[in-house]
């Protein structure tokens, strides 16, 4: 049975070139980059080279890159690093559709008594820029708004948000975990102060991420330990994984064009095919401002986990916003924030592609899906 992997927003395969780049740092170059001998010292250069490659992908200066263990650590570092400054005691403006790695810390601060605002979204998953402006006018804040949503792929207007925060004052953090590598980012032009990214969304392995910290941004250290990362993140550098992330960033730059053309074409082909062959389906999210690889489709009157198990039996891998798959008992908070009706919320399936998917794979999914949908609809008490 062939594996058709359409769950890239959950994690991605490690690119073969990345594995090749990492190997020597397990086998030969395993020294500690901070050591005072040739064996360790020779490794330091490779860490800096990886830093440079990642900085280049983001349009940043290498000195502004802090390596972390994952996107969650980067988000936590940003939210705790700025808000624990008791002299400023800043407010926080964020959104209802953020990833738990941002919402978790936000709610922690709300419990501690900070003024925390969660901006809502409309039925297409977009925020209201005027509402953001009003909230910014109320006082300086840390603004944490994701660049692109992991469930729907909806892209927030980061340039507009950045210029507003600049106008009213404040610090801007963005969880760009889903956006990096999928759309061009140039931090020289967009005045963002803090940016989180994750290796395993970028064809690097799980266990490495980074936080971009613009020069001059005040940030309290979260992982307090050694002097690594300029004192901003203690802990001996995860050398092989950092090298891997650097290589993945380099590849992402090379393949960016392909991402926004070929992958987009395949996603559109999948979406169109499913909407045409399966009745009572709808797309969730702003289709005009969306990541090129993501399609969130609701199949009405049937439930997400059941769909996923059936397609998994065929080798097809995706994910869902249904209550049964959410880990809590309610459907995805993103789908709920968009006001998607219950007829569609529990039957929502997210397909997220990568540059490794082929047209044959897409056509197979479109071919097999109608039978699965019919099978579950025959079971459903809501279908006459």
């Amino acid at each position, binding site marked *: 049975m062939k594996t058709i992997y359409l769950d890239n927003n959950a994690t991605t395969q490690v690119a073969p070139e990345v594995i090749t780049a990492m190997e020597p740092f397990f086998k030969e170059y395993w020294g500690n980059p901070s050591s005072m001998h040739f064996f360790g010292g020779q490794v330091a250069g490779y860490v800096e080279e990886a830093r440079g490659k990642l900085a280049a992908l983001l349009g940043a200066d290498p000195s502004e890159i802090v390596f972390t263990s994952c996107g969650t650590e980067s988000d936590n570092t940003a939210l705790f690093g700025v808000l624990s400054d008791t002299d400023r005691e800043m407010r926080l403006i964020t959104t209802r559709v953020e990833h738990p790695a941002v919402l978790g810390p936000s709610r922690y601060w709300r419990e501690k*008594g900070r003024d925390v605002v969660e901006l809502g979204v409309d039925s297409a998953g977009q925020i209201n820029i005027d509402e953001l402006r009003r909230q910014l006018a109320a006082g300086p804040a840390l603004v944490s708004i994701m660049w692109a949503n992991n469930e729907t792929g909806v892209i927030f207007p980061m340039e507009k948000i950045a210029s507003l925060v600049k106008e009213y004052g404040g610090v801007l953090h963005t969880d760009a975990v889903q956006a990096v590598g999928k759309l061009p980012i140039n931090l020289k032009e967009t005045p963002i102060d803090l940016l989180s990214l994750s290796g395993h969304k970028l064809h690097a392995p799980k266990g490495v991420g980074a936080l971009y910290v613009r020069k001059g941004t005040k940030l309290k250290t979260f992982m307090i330990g050694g002097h690594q990362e300029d004192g901003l993140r203690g802990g001996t550098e995860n050398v092989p994984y950092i090298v891997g992330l650097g290589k993945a960033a380099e590849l992402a730059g090379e393949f960016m064009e392909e991402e926004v053309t070929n992958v987009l074409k395949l996603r559109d082909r999948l979406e169109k095919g499913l909407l045409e062959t399966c009745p009572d389906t709808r797309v969730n999210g702003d289709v005009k401002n969306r990541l090129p690889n993501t399609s969130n489709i609701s199949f009405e*009157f*049937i*439930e*997400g*986990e*059941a769909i996923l*198990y059936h397609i998994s*039996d065929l080798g097809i891998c995706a994910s869902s916003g*249904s*209550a*049964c*798959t959410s880990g*809590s*008992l*309610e*459907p995805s908070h993103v789908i709920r924030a968009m006001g998607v009706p*219950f*007829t569609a919320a*529990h039957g929502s399936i997210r397909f997220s592609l990568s540059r490794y998917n082929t047209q044959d794979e897409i056509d197979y999914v479109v071919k097999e899906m109608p039978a699965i949908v019919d099978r579950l609809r*025959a*079971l*459903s*008490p*809501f279908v006459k």
Partner: protein
Amino acid sequence: MWNYTGKVLEHFRNPRNVGTIEDPDGVGEVGSLACGDALKLMFKLDADGKIADAKFKTFGCASAIASSSALTEIIKGMTLEEAGGVTNQQIADYLGGLPEQKMHCSVMGREALEAAIENYQTGGTSKKILEGKVVCNCFGITEEEIERVVRENALTSVEEVTNYTKAGGGCGNCKPDIQNIIDRVVKEREEADKPAAEAPRKMTILQKIKRIEQTLNDVVRPMLQKDGGDLELVDVDGDKVIVSFRGMCAGCNVAQFTLKDVVETKLREFVSPDIVVEEERV
């Protein structure tokens, strides 16, 4: 992925008795699209009053579909009296067990069966009627249902109740209420098991503090926050609870009323009738 048994997956992939019965004897409907789970069960009796045929339609996940299929297989051939005694644990056992967080699927099966039997016996509605006080507003679960599930499955924690009924799995405000129901059932069971006079079990200090914290966070603070206020737990000394008001409450000239009518009343209701609340002014 869930740790489903082979039997669950088999009944999910090849469910038995799917469909409807023309001119059924009993029809039971539970759940809704909002819930994410729904089951419509129908049965037909033979001349001897035994269930000759049963059919189902389900909206739900793999374990919901498997539970419904299992249920119809279990009840075929039973008398109505026998069917009335089928427990949710029997459904789960038939499938070789269900993950804890999916036990509510087996409970849904038992509820649909009861609704169908009641529908046959009284000719009333096929939909499950909510009897008694609704404890969980998010999922519409009554005190009776929670009590029953706690009793029949010997549950001891709020988390287990959520796994079996979904109650408490939404906003979480009903969790202290659920804990009270559990405590009540456990106490009743213990009193029934030990008829000899025994000193009443007191709450340990740790339990009391935890319960106080839970009540303040889940019940009291949301009420104050609605009006822009809040409070902080400062200390607990025996039956004395010391709090400090925050936000709008801090400057409010009727905060004394809030202290007694809201904070103390709720703590006496959920923790212990002996509690006295005092305010510590910062």
